[in-house]
Structures are given as C-alpha cells and as structure tokens.
C-alpha cells in the first residue's frame, strides 16, 4: 500500500489541472470556509445572545441534538428537495454548504454560549459598576473572556467540517472527496487512500493554524492560572500580567 501511495503522490500528473492536488485542496478549503462562515453568522450571534441574556438555553440543547442527523442522508434529502428548485451548479453547491454548515452550528453555538456563560460574575459586575451599557459589557468584557471557549468551538467545527466536506463529491462537486469517490468507483485504491491521507493532513494543518490564531487573539490573562475562565493559552507572560493588573480579563482583544 505505502509504495503505491508514494508513487501516487510523486506522480506529477496528480499535481496539476482540475484533478490535481492543489485544485482539489483549494476546493476543499473553500467548501469548509463557506460552511463555517454561514454557520458562524448564525451561531455566534445566537450564542452571544443566549449566553448574555440567559434566555432560550434550549436552543443550545436543540442544536446539540441535531448532531445526531447523518450528514450523508441529509445531503441526499436536501439535494433531492432543492434539485428541481435551483438551476445550474448551485443545485449541488447549496445542499452541500447547507449540510456542512448544519454540522458546524452545534459546536459554534455551544462554544460561544458556554464562553459567555462562564465569564466571572465579578468581572461582569465590575463592568456594570463602572457604568458600561449592556452592549459594552458584551463587547468589552464578555466576548474577550469568552474567546478561549469560543475558539475551541470554532476549532472543533472546522475539524468536523473539513473531515466531512468529502461528501460534496458524492453529488458531483470537487474537493478531496473526489479522490475517495473516484478511487473507489475505479478500484484505484492508492488514489482513495491518498484522498484520505490528504483530508487528515489538511485537518491537522488547519487545526494548527487556528491554534496559532487563538494564541494571538486570546488575552494572555485568560491563560491557565489566570483569574478568568480556564483558557488554553500557555503564554508565560500571563503570570506577571495577572499579578500587576487585576483588570486584565476586561482588556479588549489585541
């Protein structure tokens, strides 16, 4: 298996044109980005609202239970339903983005909600005490403090979507799933295995990228040991920052 996989990857024919790795990789990333954007536009504001007001928490449980819906089955249903209603390429693109976005909503919503929910009540009180409006409290206190959990929501959404975006190939679109579907249809197993490896590598790389972004964006004061919610960052500066500046969690993101 490994030698044929290596020769597949080293064949120049697999690195150019519509069927080449760069193009399929780009398509895959594009489907992922579109789905995450659509989901973020819906889920993040909703999560902030639920977390800030404490109302309609059932939305989070509802979204979580929606994780049980099988993506491939949903894809068939949505594309059969939308097929006669949309013309051209969109008839395949829209169903794919819809099902992938649905996959990304639960982690985004839960991460955002939990992040806001877990903000230290003392920080919130202090913000109110200095005369901030509810919107200012949200923007300057709750959102920055929610970032570590919000980011873990984003990262788990990205991982899920990037790993599942292969289903787009089932309804004739591109992306790395093309290698899986075509490889299996033609009995070309090295191609199918290469597709699987590429999806895995892409998932790891994207997660790494988001880990870096998270490090830059999240306040060092929210690192483990800080007085806010337990964060994920490991920045050593956080200790001294926390020591001389108790108001760190209130800082806006860098």
């Amino acid at each position, binding site marked *: 298996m490994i030698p044929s996989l290596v020769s597949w990857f080293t064949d120049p024919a697999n690195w150019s044109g519509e069927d080449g790795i760069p193009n399929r990789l780009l398509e895959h990333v594009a489907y992922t980005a579109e789905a995450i954007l659509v989901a973020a536009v819906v889920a993040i504001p909703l999560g902030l609202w639920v977390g800030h007001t404490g109302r309609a928490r059932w939305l989070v449980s509802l979204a979580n239970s929606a994780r049980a819906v099988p993506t491939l089955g949903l894809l068939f249903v949505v594309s059969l339903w939308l097929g006669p209603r949309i013309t051209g390429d969109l008839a395949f693109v829209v169903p794919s983005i819809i099902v992938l976005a649905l996959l990304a909503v639960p982690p985004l919503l839960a991460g955002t909600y939990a992040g806001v929910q877990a903000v230290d009540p003392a920080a919130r009180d202090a913000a109110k005490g200095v005369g901030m409006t509810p919107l200012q409290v949200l923007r300057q206190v709750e959102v920055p403090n929610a970032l570590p959990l919000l980011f873990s929501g984003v990262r788990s959404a990205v991982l899920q979507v990037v790993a599942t975006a292969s289903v787009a190939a089932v309804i004739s679109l591109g992306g790395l799933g093309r290698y899986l579907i075509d490889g299996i249809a033609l009995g070309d197993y090295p191609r199918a295995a290469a597709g699987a490896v590429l999806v895995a590598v892409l998932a790891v790389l994207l997660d790494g990228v988001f*880990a870096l972004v998270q490090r830059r964006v999240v306040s060092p004061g929210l690192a483990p040991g800080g007085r806010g919610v337990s964060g994920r960052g490991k920045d050593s500066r956080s200790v001294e920052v926390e020591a001389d500046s108790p108001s760190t969690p209130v800082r806006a993101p860098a």
Partner: protein
Amino acid sequence: MKRTTSALALLAASILGLTACGSGNDPLASETPAATTSGGSGEPIVVGGANFSESTLLAEIYAGALRAKGLDATTKPNIGSREIYLRALEDNSVQVFPEYTGALALFYDKSYTGTDPEEVYAHVQDIVPDTLTVLDKSVAEDNDSIVVTKQTATEKGLTTIEDLAPVAGDLTLAAPPEFKERPQGIPGLEKTYGVTFGSFRPLNPQGVVQALKNGQVDAANIFSTDPSIAENEFVQLEDTKKLFGSQNIVPLVRADRADEVRDALNAVSAKLTTESIAQMLKQTDIDKKDPKAVAQEFLSANGLG
C-alpha cells in the same frame, strides 16, 4: 496545542495502519474470505450485483433459478462498479455475476474494437481469466447510451451522438464517476466521435437521471433499458459508430463452479429478452416493486422456478 499533538499522533497511527495492509491490492482484504480452491458442489453460491437496479434484478433472477435447482444461492447486490466486482469474482467472494459482453471484452482487452455480437462473445470467452468463464449469452441487450432531454434534442437538432460534436463544448454531461476514465467513456467519445463536453458531473445512476430531469446537466449516460428514459421522454442519441459495441447479458461464473450452475443459468439466458428486462425494470424502478418479487414472477412465468 494538545489537540494538535494528539491529531498528529492519530495521523501517524493511521499511516502505520496503512503500512500494515501489506502489498496486497485489496486494502479491505480482511472483509473478504481468502480465496479457496476447493469450490466443491454443495457449497453456497453468492450471486453478485453491480450498483444499478438492472444488475440487482438479474442477480435475483439468477439466484432464484439456482435455488429452483436445489442450490444454496444468495445475492450480494450493489457491490460497486466493474472495476470492483470483477476482483470480488477473482478472489472468490462471489461466484456468479450478470455481465455484459462488450464491457467485459473491453475490460480485459483495452484495445478491443469488435462490435458484432457473436464476435464479441467469442472474444470474451478467449480473454476472461482462467478462473472465470462465461455461459451462454442471451439476446437481451442493455447498452450504455447518451441521452438528452426532448427540448435539447429539438433545439440543437440532435438525433445521433455525432450531432453532439459541434455543440458539446457548451454542454454538461452527467455520468457515474468511472465513465470519466473508461475507454468507452469520455476518452471513447473523444476518440470515436470527436465529442468533448464542456464539463462533467460525476453522479450515481439515480443522481444522473435526477440531474438531467432537473436541467442541471444537458446530457447523461443512462443504460438503454432504463425506464426513466420513457418516463421523462428523454431522447436516446443513436450510437452510429458503435462506440458502445454489443452488450448482451451473459452470466460470468467461477470456472470451478460452472458445472453446477450451467443448466440453470443457460435456461435463464434463453428466456431473457431486452423487452422483458425493460418491462421488469419499469416495475422495480418506477413502480418501486421488490426486485426479488419481480424476479420470482419472471421465473414462474417462464417455468424456471
């Protein structure tokens, strides 16, 4: 960063897993029983089927006819495309498969160009691997075809595949994924007819019909017996240069089991006609009847089981 580390570990583990598969050409080898050489009579017979409804129907007919002769026959439909299921026959995980003469000839002899039904059948007998053999072919034929909607045919004046040559650049073709690389697929359309479609949509057989019906594609590769052609008034373009050759239905069986199944399957081949298949497919695909029941009806009506 912990997540990244564990993801890397997972990736490493999965690559190790791939290495463990060894050099065999079937990465899913553990699922199929090891090739046995015994093949003695009395052992169960598995009739395979490809991933389209006609193949499922034919598998049920074959299995029903074998059971009527007292053999322990079961079916394993929806195995996949030819590239997959012929391996299943070669490694003895299925013993009988409904096949098509022309496609089989071209699979084992990529440069074959014969189109006469008798010639193709004779050639197939010569070139299938020693472990396999074909029984009698039937007159029933199911060919690949290129179909368009009635509207497209009228607007562009299409009656044959040749007519597509000047207009195909603006058109989209839908077909199963393997059509893109098969010699009779897109490469054949280009070589034989000079027809190059503007774009290609790889879909499963049901998806192909849906896409043509919904107007997302302009042309589609659909089997000539498919009842959706009449149902949707699609126009089948004539294959004037015989790109798709002759495609008589023929049982492809393991050579070591041929004696047990020969009489039953040859009797089926003698009774099958293109019309009877088209009529049965209408029942399974349009009226959504169980293929097994439809197959049984055919067998009873023809005194086969």
